[in-house]
Each structure stands twice: as C-alpha cells, then as structure tokens.
C-alpha cells in the first residue's frame, strides 16, 4: 500500500520565505500521488503547529510526514517527538533542509532557490515513500562517569556527580590535581585564593567512597560508546610511597642533582626533579618528574621509600559517559614578541601573579625592586586572521585585579595599562573603576599600531600612540613589563584526538550548539566543561562543569539508553570478507565473523553510528544502511533528476 504523506513547508519566519516562494513549493508537490495533504507554516517548530501536525496525522491517518525547514541538526528530535505523540513511528518522518541548503545558500536567486527547494522536497517525499517503522536499540547504561582533568571544572563535576550517587573516575595527567586555579593566588570576585578553593574541593572529594582519583594518569585508548565506554588508563609511577614524609622528602631533594624551571610557578622559580608537598598540591604525596629525572639513584640512597624501578601501570575501566575538562594553556609569546625572552624585564601575566604571591613586603624580580609596571594587553589574543582571533575573556579583569593587589601589597607601585579597550564585562566593571580611582593609568593603542617595548642602555621603555590623548605618542620607562597572555587550547591534544572530538575555528573543543546543546559534543555520551571549550573565568567554568555533569547524569540516570537503529546491515550471501569495510569504519564497529564456515563481516550495532563510511567501499555491494538504503537513495536521485 502506498504511503499517506503529509508535507509541511516552513517559512522559518522569513528565513526561508524571504528567498523561497514556499506557496509555489507547496503547489508543486501537492498533487504527488502519495501526498494527502500539504501545508505551509510560519514556524513548523512552534507549539501551535506541532499540535496541528499531531491532529493532522491522527485525523488523516497519515503513515508518513515530510518537514521541509531548517537543518535536522536543530529539529530532528522535535518532529520525531511530534510523530510519536501522534502514534506514528518516528522513522516515518523525513526531513528536508531547505534553509541551509536553499534559502540561505541562494539568497541572491529567489527563482533558483525555489526550484531547488521543490526538488529537495520531492526527494524527501521519495525517501518517505520507502521509509519503514523501526525500533530504537536499547542498551544498558553504566552508572559511572569518567572525568578527564582535575582542575576546578573537573573537581566540581566529580563532586556534583558523586552527590547524584554516580560512580566517578577522576583522571588527572599531572601528579597533582588543582589545574590552573591551584596555581593562582587571590581571585576576583571573592578574593579567595586558588589554594583555598582547591583545598576545599579536594577535601570534599577525597573522602567519598564513589570517587576514584587517578593522578599521573592518562587515557591511552578507548572503545565502546555511550552507556558503556571502556577506557584504558596508564599511570606513571610517582616512585615514592605514601610513607615518605616532608622531612624525608627534603633529604631526597637536597641530594637530587637535577634542577628544572618549576611549571607550577610558570618558571619564575626552579625545583628539583623530586618534589611535592607544596600548598594546593594534592594528594599530599611527593613525586618524581619522570621527564627530568636522570635515574641517578641519589635519592634512593637517602630514602627507603623511593623505588626507581617501578613501572607504569595500566587499568581498564567501564563508564557510561565521559566528561572532558582538560583546560587550557597560557599563551607563550614568540621570542621577541614585545621583548619576551630577549628583555629580562618582560614576563607574562601568570608569572607576574606568581611573583606577587611569592614576594613579601617588596616586589623584587631578578634582584631589582619593581616600582613602575607596564601591562601590555591582548598578547596572544585578538590577533586577527593570522593568529588567535578570539578574545581570551579572563585577562582584562585578571590583570586589573593583579595590578590592584600589587599596589596594595607593595609600596610605590605605579601601574600603566597599555590596553586595546578594557573588557571588564558585567560586575567586573567595578574593579576597573576601583583601579582608576587608585590612580592607575590607562593608555590605549589602535589596532594597527600596537604598543612597542624597547630598551636603551639597559633601561626598558614602552611606547604607544595613545588614542585617549588624541593619539599622541607616549613613552613610559618601566621596571617590569607584564605581557597579558591569553588562553590557548592545550598543546597536548592526545586525549581529545583519541576521542575524535571536533574543534572549532578557534581550535578549542566544540559543542554541538552554543545555546541548545552547549556541553554536548558530536560524540554521543562525551560532554565538555570549562576552558577546554573556550576561555572562561572560574565561575563560568564551574557553571559549564555543573551543566556537563547534569547532562552526563541525564544520559545514565535511567540505567538504560536508546540508540539509533540507523546502522548498517550486511548481506551474508554477498559478503566475501575482503576487510575493506572494517578498515573504513572509524568506530571499529565491523569485525570478522563466520557464516557457517565462511568468513563474513559482522556489525556491532551498539558501536555502529550509521555514518555510512563502509557502504561505498564494499566491492560486492553487500552493505546497506538502514534509512539510507541504496533503494532509498536511488529513489531520491530519481526525484532530484526527473527534469534532466
């Protein structure tokens, strides 16, 4: 029996109807044999139209619907739900994207856009004719979440999930949790220190029975999909047992011959290859920096709790969902960029913050007391097409906050802010006002002639054409230049590459939709939180982390998940097991199996994503993708080419 179809063509409030004659499209398809009814609608997705669709399906006894509107990325689920509410199997609804593919793409050609839309809708009707009712696959969801990254976002997500009675595995690459926030001193707006914040979060977490913390650990491989991810975690040994106390560590540190710049202070101080027990470094257990250690054995001789022969360990874990909170790297300026690495008086904002924290009564850098400080903003941010074009969001406020702290903590500090327009958005504005009140000077460069750092006879100057004083050239002699470096994506991309997570133009990890699905990624069951997604301040990171935790919890809280039945089917008779399909599969869903004693390809339907990569490579045409079968595609092509 032929299908009884209803077709809905959306105006999208002008997004489509300004460029496509939707009424003409409707007229072009209304007499198609199986089209029982066709309508145009202002907003197909609106509540009132959805209600109308449900009534139409029921009253006209429709066996399929076609919605021609925006991208299915936005509204596939909306119309699937409409079908379900009308007791129509949701796989009998077919979508035609006439906004992104017609009206927006051809806004200069109304006639052409209308003709193309007619064909797109006809093709969708051709597909809908063959559509079949399907049942989603049901899989068990493991009540556990892996949180990757133990910074503030990861810690908050772990606490939140643990509160919701979910097992949490927190995996941190570094020997200590705390991330970037653990490195900061006082923070705006509460003046809480990073140490205080991380210490309190760690204390909340460490006592929980349903949380396992893996430090010095990385995810090295994964398989499976939403509901059941299998992760292999490799842990690098600390080489030091828990019994080593601070006194014993000191002895070992004294004999360790290796000195490296301390990444915890962004290199403004040094440390030994063996270290630990610093404030905000948790767990309170010493470690050896594997990359720097020469394995000379000097420490082993003074401490019985050190064993350099320990090997890396591997564990395998099963979780229902993965939450990425891998954070950011501070931008490292190029050599010579505003004098960086060439002029001794030039440091970065993170280094300056550590310098303030580490200094008592006087601010001293490289033996020199600092009085006049220049801050050069937007280093590594807003670089235009050639570099990082984005704004790093946190740095204006963070710089002004640090400058105020410096002024209050030390005597005779004069701050000169060489900025490109201060962006202390929201309530952060009051900090800017306070800084002005304290007498900080703000000089603003134009975008095409940035501030310049130069030195003369060992003295450092900063010069700028200041647009706040009629673009006059201003020069200031300073003791220290602070480069306000922004956030960049982590240089170590191993874990995001492992999970094949999409990145945006800014190279940060990308969400599916900034407003509709802001913490979900294209990989089902993997969420993103904090600064791995984009620059954020602490509160913003926490909000995104708790949102991701809620989403992860929603995936697994029912213990069962539905997955798409849109998977490939293999015709065992035609298949000759040439292995082409299994090589092409990006999800390792196809393996070798047996049909009697004949080798054939077998599909794991919970892993198959229905991407269709395998279908074109099959030399015997043995693979068909459900809902995109060769027959359906051929039918669509016939509809698209009927006039040719």
């Amino acid at each position, binding site marked *: 029996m032929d299908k009884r179809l209803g077709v809905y063509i959306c105006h*999208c*409030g002008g997004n489509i109807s300004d460029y496509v004659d939707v009424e003409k499209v409707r007229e072009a398809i209304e007499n198609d044999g199986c089209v029982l009814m066709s309508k145009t609608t*202002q*907003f197909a*997705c*609106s*509540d*009132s139209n*959805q209600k109308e669709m449900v009534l139409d399906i029921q009253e006209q006894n429709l066996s399929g619907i076609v919605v021609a509107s*925006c991208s299915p990325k936005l*509204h596939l689920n*909306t119309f699937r*739900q409409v079908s379900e*509410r009308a007791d129509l199997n949701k796989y009998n609804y077919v979508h035609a994207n006439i906004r992104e593919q017609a009206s927006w793409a051809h806004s200069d050609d109304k006639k052409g856009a209308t003709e193309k839309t007619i064909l797109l809708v006809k093709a969708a009707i051709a597909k809908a004719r063959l559509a079949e009712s399907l049942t989603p696959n049901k899989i068990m969801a493991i009540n556990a979440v892996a949180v990757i990254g133990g910074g*503030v976002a990861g810690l*908050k997500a772990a606490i*939140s999930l643990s*509160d919701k*009675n979910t097992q949490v595995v927190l995996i941190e690459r570094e020997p200590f949790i705390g991330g970037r926030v653990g490195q900061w001193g006082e923070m705006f*707006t509460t003046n*809480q220190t990073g140490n205080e*914040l991380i210490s*309190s979060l760690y204390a909340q977490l460490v006592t929980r029975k349903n949380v396992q913390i893996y430090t010095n650990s990385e995810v090295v491989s994964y398989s499976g999909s939403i509901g059941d991810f299998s992760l292999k975690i490799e842990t690098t040994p600390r080489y030091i047992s828990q019994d080593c106390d601070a006194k014993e560590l000191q002895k070992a540190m004294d004999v360790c011959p290796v000195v490296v710049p301390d990444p915890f202070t962004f290199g403004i101080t040094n440390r030994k290859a063996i270290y630990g027990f610093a404030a905000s470094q948790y767990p309170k257990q010493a470690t050896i920096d594997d990359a720097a250690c020469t394995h000379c054995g000097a420490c082993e001789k003074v401490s019985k709790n050190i064993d350099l022969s320990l090997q890396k360990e591997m564990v395998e874990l099963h979780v229902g969902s993965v939450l990425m909170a891998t954070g950011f790297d501070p931008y490292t300026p190029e050599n010579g960029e505003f004098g960086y690495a060439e002029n001794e008086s030039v440091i970065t904002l993170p280094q300056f913050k550590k310098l303030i924290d580490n200094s008592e009564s006087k601010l001293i850098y490289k033996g020199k007391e600092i009085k006049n400080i220049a801050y050069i903003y937007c280093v590594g941010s807003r670089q235009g097409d050639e570099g990082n*074009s*984005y*704004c790093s*969001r946190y740095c204006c406020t963070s710089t002004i906050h640090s400058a105020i702290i410096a002024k209050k903590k030390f005597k005779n500090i004069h701050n000169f802010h060489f900025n490109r*327009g*201060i*962006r202390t*958005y*929201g*309530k952060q*504005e009051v900090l800017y*006002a306070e800084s002005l009140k304290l007498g900080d000077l703000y000089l603003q460069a134009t975008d095409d002639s940035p501030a310049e750092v130069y030195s003369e006879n060992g003295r450092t100057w900063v010069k700028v054409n200041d*647009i706040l*004083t*009629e673009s006059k050239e201003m020069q200031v002699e300073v003791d220290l230049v602070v480069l306000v470096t922004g956030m960049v994506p982590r240089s170590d991309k191993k874990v995001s590459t492992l999970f094949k997570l999409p990145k*945006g*133009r*800014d190279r940060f990890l990308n969400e599916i939709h*900034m*407003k509709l699905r*802001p*913490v979900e990624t294209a990989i089902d069951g993997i969420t993103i939180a904090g600064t791995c997604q*984009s*620059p954020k301040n*602490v*509160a*913003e990171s*926490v*909000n*995104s982390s*708790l*949102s*991701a935790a*809620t*989403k992860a919890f*929603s995936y697994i*809280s029912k213990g069962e998940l539905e997955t798409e039945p849109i998977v490939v089917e293999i015709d065992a008779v035609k298949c000759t097991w040439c292995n082409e399909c299994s090589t092409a599969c990006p999800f390792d869903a196809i393996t070798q199996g047996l049909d009697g004693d004949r080798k054939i390809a077998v599909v794991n339907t919970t892993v198959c994503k229905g991407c269709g990569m395998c279908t074109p490579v099959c030399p015997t045409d043995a693979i068909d993708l459900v809902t995109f079968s060769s027959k359906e595609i051929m039918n669509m092509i016939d509809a698209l080419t009927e006039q040719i």
Partner: protein
Amino acid sequence: MSSTKNSVSYDALVVGAGIAGGEAALNLAVNGFKVLLVEKDLSVGGNMIKLSKVFPTLDCSACITTPKVSEISRHPNITIFTGSEASNIRRVADNHFVANITRQPRYVRVEDCTACQLCEKACPVSVRDQYQFGLIGRKAAYIPFSIASPKAAAIDIENCTLCGACERACPTNCIDFTQEVEHLEMQFKTVILATGFEMFDANRIPRYGFGKYKNVLTSLQMEREIAPTRPFNTILRPSDGKVPDKIAYVLCVGSRDASVGNPICSQICCMYSIKQSQLLMGALPMADVTIYYINIRAFGKGFEDFYQQAKGMGVNFVKGKVGSISETENGNLMLRYEDINEGIVKEEEHDMVILSVGVLPNEGTTSLFSEEQLMLDPYRFVHQTDGLANPSHTSIDGVFVAGTATGPMDIPDAILSAGSASSEAISYLLK
C-alpha cells in the same frame, strides 16, 4: 474575590519561565523530578522568545526557543502556571518549602481556545502592545504574540470595557468573565530562582530624548522591527514611516553610569547592537550604521570574530560617549559627542537613533520570600554567596539561582548557569 486553598506538592519550584528557568525545569524533569514552573507573564519563553536573531551565530531566536518551549510545555513532569506569581516563600525545614501561588484570571479557558483571533477582531478597545514594546497597538482581547505558549487569547481586564463583543464572537465559548484570582499554597523540596532582568528605562536619561523624539527608539523596539514576526514587515522610523538610512547606536545607556545608579556593565549590549547593525546592513543595504561606544566588549566564544565581521561589513564604530541628542525640524536627530580619537566634541546628524539600554535587576525577586530574607548584592541582583565555587548558591539553603537573576549575562551563559543551578538542585533533592 474567592480563595481556593489547595495543598499540592512538587519536588521543585522554578520561578520564572524564561530561557534559564525553562532549561532548569527541563533538566529536573528529565531526571524524574516534578516541577512547578511559575511565570508572571502570559507566555513562557521570557525575553529570548521576543528576539530576532541571536549573536554570534545569527541563529533565528524563535527557531531555538520554540522547540525548547514546546518540550517544556509537554513534559509530563512539568506543570506550568502562566499569569501567576509566587510569594511568601518560606523554608520550613531541610527539603521543605512552602509558597503561596497566585494565579491571575486570564478570562479565557486556555484548553478550549483555538487562537482563531475572532475575539481580537471583535474587541473595540485598542491599547499599546507591550510585546511589541509599544511600537504598534493590540486589542484588549488578544493573543500575546504569534509564537506565544500557550497560544491562547487573554483579556486585558484593566483596559476591557466589558462590552461582551469577544464573548459573542468566540466560536468555542472559551471566554469566561467569571474567572477569579486563585490563591494556592503549595509545598516544595527546593526552589530555583530564574526571575530574569528588567531593561533600563530610557526615560530616565532625558538628554537622549526618548519618549520626546519619535525617532529615538530602544534596542528592544529595534529588536522587534527586525524580528521575523516584525510588526511593520520592514524597518521604518516612527515619526513619518520613512525607511531610515543613517542609523546611530548609543551604547551604555543606563550601564557603566553611576549617575543613574548603575555602575556595572550590562554585558550584552555591545554584542546585541553589533548583531542588530549586521541585520540592518543586510535589510537596508544602502543604510549607514554608526555605533558610538566606550569599549566594545566582545569577550565570548565567537564574539570578537563577530565584531570584526561587522567592521568588515562597513559598520562605523566611533569611540565616544554621546552627551545629548536634539531633534531637527524634519525629525532627524543631532548627536553631540566626544570623538575620543580626535579629542574634540563633534555633532552628527542621524535619521534614527537606537539607545542600547542596559540590564537591571528584577525588583520583584526581593519580595518572593517572607521570614528568611534573600540576600542581594550591591546592585540588587541575587547575591551569590560562594561566587567562585558555587555560583548558584544563595543565602538560603536549598534555594538556587539561575540566569540573569544573578547579574547581566548572555544567552549561552544563562543556559549554563541554569545547568549549574539544576545540578545543585538535583544533588540537594537526592541528599
């Protein structure tokens, strides 16, 4: 007025059904918790549902909001009361709040109304349409706006003459003037405040001439002029219906301005003005658009590129605060401003001026609680007692805050803040 005393309990009370409240309610509902969503307005969707397109992606706002609204309206775990307010919320014990809910009569039985608009046609009373920010009129019997949810008529009883024309015109007999205010007392285990914000009233800065000069509009009025469901189907200036060709934006109206009692930055105005300027350039290719600014705050994901894109399209950015606006004989407007780049005071004529008004706290939030008072911050937004580690915590245990009730923020941030508040509420409910 009669009083019906009901006692019904829910897991959570969400106050405010804008995009933050809706998101928070949905997060609770999908995890099995029963939610009462209370909205003062006649429709859910808050401010976002009234917008044109949203920055920085230029997604059509209705396209994002309506399916969310539809999901919220349909969810079996969510009960929505529109035209209703919560008050006298008090904490009785851990996991136990009591609140009074007042439901104003709509004078229309929503379940019977088909939104056929015959009552609108029959109604003889015309007043300014608040959903179009006064740009056009509406009737006293009216459907709030085309994508309202619920999409049903309401009677504006303040302006109604009780002539009965709508009742006679209604084919389903859903108009019911006997409806009365309902007073309910309800029990909840937790409360989420998503009471949103108010826009700064441009009348408070007389030197900009809003309300006096017809061609000075607020940014929300312009938002309606460029929305898909726009009232005039084109952009025109109110004084003479002319299509404008030299439009000015004045930023920081009511923000970063201690003289009007609001020292903070409103966080969204730079970006919505840039968005509107791009849409105007698209709709009126011959028009000049100038944005007068102090600093452009394009800080979020994709914002800086969006700002550069506007510059590339030819939007003129002038660094300078506008001092005053005066009207010329033909209804044009003369802006007096300091051009900071050149260090001199200048004047420039435009034929339409948009005031980019800022964000103020919703004063209604303060009166929600009796007994234990909700602490506010110095700007009268809801105080976040642990702003870094727990941004959604308030001064009352078990009460969480989402979205712009805590301060100005854009849509993505409001949604994440709602995710945060609902996470805390779920943890609290499972404790």
